[in-house]
């Protein structure tokens, strides 16, 4: 199925609606998974914030007149408490990251201009997070077209909402799920001109027509992450972040379907390491190393040369055997 612009928009709306739906079902935060730990925080100030921001419909009361009315929370200001308390940042209070200005309501105008923390602000140069290489990720991001073409308006948040962040690439047990979620991040902007308009004046180009040159585009788009072709490969971090301009993207079949494939670095190395980390050496490497890239590690020259030499050895042995049968050298030796 080829998705057109409308389909992409519908897809995103469906994703958004499903999030909103689950949030409405969670009218209170009582049913979240980490309830015990959450209560420590929720009773402080999260509960106050989430009283409005945790609901798509909230109630506002005028304390002077005593009048109350229901209002819709703007979608981008809504926080699904369920998703938040299941994210890696679940233990933070709202005011750990947001300014004190949010304590009062209506919120002061300055709060709208508060700079959001980026990943590197908290995780950079911290030995506890050294394995994730945030510094290298940040350096890549600053070289990416996302950063250079938007004067930095594009931040980590455009792809990674800290309220809901989970290490998908590390923890997803399914390659397909990983691909789907990863591509959803890209389509969130690249399939929606309004959201893309928040960071650039550039007109949105249609994703699918640009990929029609691919043989069997549906299978490619379902089986490959956008970033596999659109980032400069770096096999020392899990997910490459240097998104390149569209005209620099991979467009040569041989880049993936050949020896010395760019997929070798990312798929082999990380799939192998992650599998080992999750399942241990015996189960993760010995028995289920799925990260061999078929065809990518084959050199026709080496295979051909090896087979020719083996054939020559066998031919030589064959000729030698024929002479042995004709001449009978061992018999000759003992007779002499």
């Amino acid at each position, binding site marked *: 199925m080829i998705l057109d612009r409308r389909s992409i928009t519908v897809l995103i709306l469906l994703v958004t609606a499903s999030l909103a739906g689950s949030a409405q079902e969670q009218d209170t935060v009582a049913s979240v998974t980490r309830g015990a730990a959450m209560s420590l925080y929720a009773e402080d100030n999260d509960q106050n914030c989430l009283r409005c921001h945790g609901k798509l419909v909230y109630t506002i009361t005028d304390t002077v007149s005593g009048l109350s009315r229901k209002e819709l929370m703007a979608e981008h200001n809504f926080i699904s408490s369920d998703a938040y308390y299941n994210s890696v940042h679940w233990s933070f209070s709202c005011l750990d990251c947001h300014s004190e200005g949010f304590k009062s309501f209506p919120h002061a105008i300055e709060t709208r201009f508060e700079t959001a923390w980026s990943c590197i602000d908290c995780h950079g140069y911290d030995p506890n997070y050294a394995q994730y290489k945030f510094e290298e990720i940040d350096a890549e991001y600053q070289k990416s077209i996302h950063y250079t073409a938007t004067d930095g308006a594009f931040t980590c948040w455009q792809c990674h909402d800290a309220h809901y962040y989970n290490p998908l690439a590390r923890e997803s047990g399914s390659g397909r799920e990983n691909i789907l979620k990863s591509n959803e991040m890209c389509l969130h902007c690249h399939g929606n001109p309004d959201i893309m308009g928040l960071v650039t004046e550039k007109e949105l180009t249609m994703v699918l027509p640009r990929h029609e040159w691919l043989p069997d585009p549906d299978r490619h788009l379902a089986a490959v992450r956008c970033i596999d072709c659109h980032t400069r490969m770096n*096999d*020392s971090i899990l997910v490459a972040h240097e998104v390149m301009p569209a005209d620099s993207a991979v467009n040569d079949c041989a880049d993936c379907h050949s*020896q*010395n*494939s760019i997929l*070798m*670095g990312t798929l*082999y*190395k990380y799939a*192998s*390491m992650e599998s080992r980390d999750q399942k241990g*050496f015996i189960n993760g*490497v*010995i*028995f*289920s*190393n*799925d990260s*061999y890239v*078929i*065809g990518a*590690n*084959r*050199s026709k020259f*080496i*295979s051909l*040369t*090896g087979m020719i*030499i*083996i054939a020559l*050895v*066998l031919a030589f*042995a064959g000729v*030698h055997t024929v*002479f*042995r049968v004709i*001449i009978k*050298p*061992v018999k*000759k*030796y*003992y*007779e*002499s």
Partner: protein
Amino acid sequence: MSHNFYHYPVWVRLWHAMNAILCLFLIVTGFSMLYSDPDNALVVKFQRAVAIHNVCGVLLTISYTLFLFGNLFTPNGRHYLLRIKGVGQRLWQQGYFYAFGYFKGEKAPFPVSADRKFNPLQQLSYVGVMYFVLPMLFITGWALMFPEFILKKFLGLSGIFLTDQFHVILGFLVVIFLFIHLYVSTMGKSPVSNFRSIVTGWQESH
């Protein structure tokens, strides 16, 4: 006149048998991965080939370590000590024998004896395989299981790709060695006498 002498102690025969079985599995599964094709019934299914190859590779590493200890602490190790002086002359003599002297009914220039297990050509190839090819196969094979230790780039090429290619080349060398080894083994007193020796331990000399 021929006579028999005890030539292969039990540990050498056990190690040799284990080595042979593991190498056969590794070669079959290695080729299966290299020429992987789901529609080809001649090759082992890819995922199964990967698992068998990895298990055999680990076992061969253990078996090889035992072999190294055996060579260090028993007299078997002396057969693997190359004497450089006059090596060219000795290799030529042995090569000439295989190509011509053997057919003329000449006596082998370096016959097997209790003190000499290998002729010069065998010794050179066995030393090369046991002390260079196999260790490099182990290093590259284990590196592919721990890819974080592989250089990211070398001469502009992916370190993983180069390691893999080197592993494949070394694998081909082992296959070539195996064919030559098997063929030369048929050149005993009878085509099967050397095979019998490595099973019983007793060598027929002639």
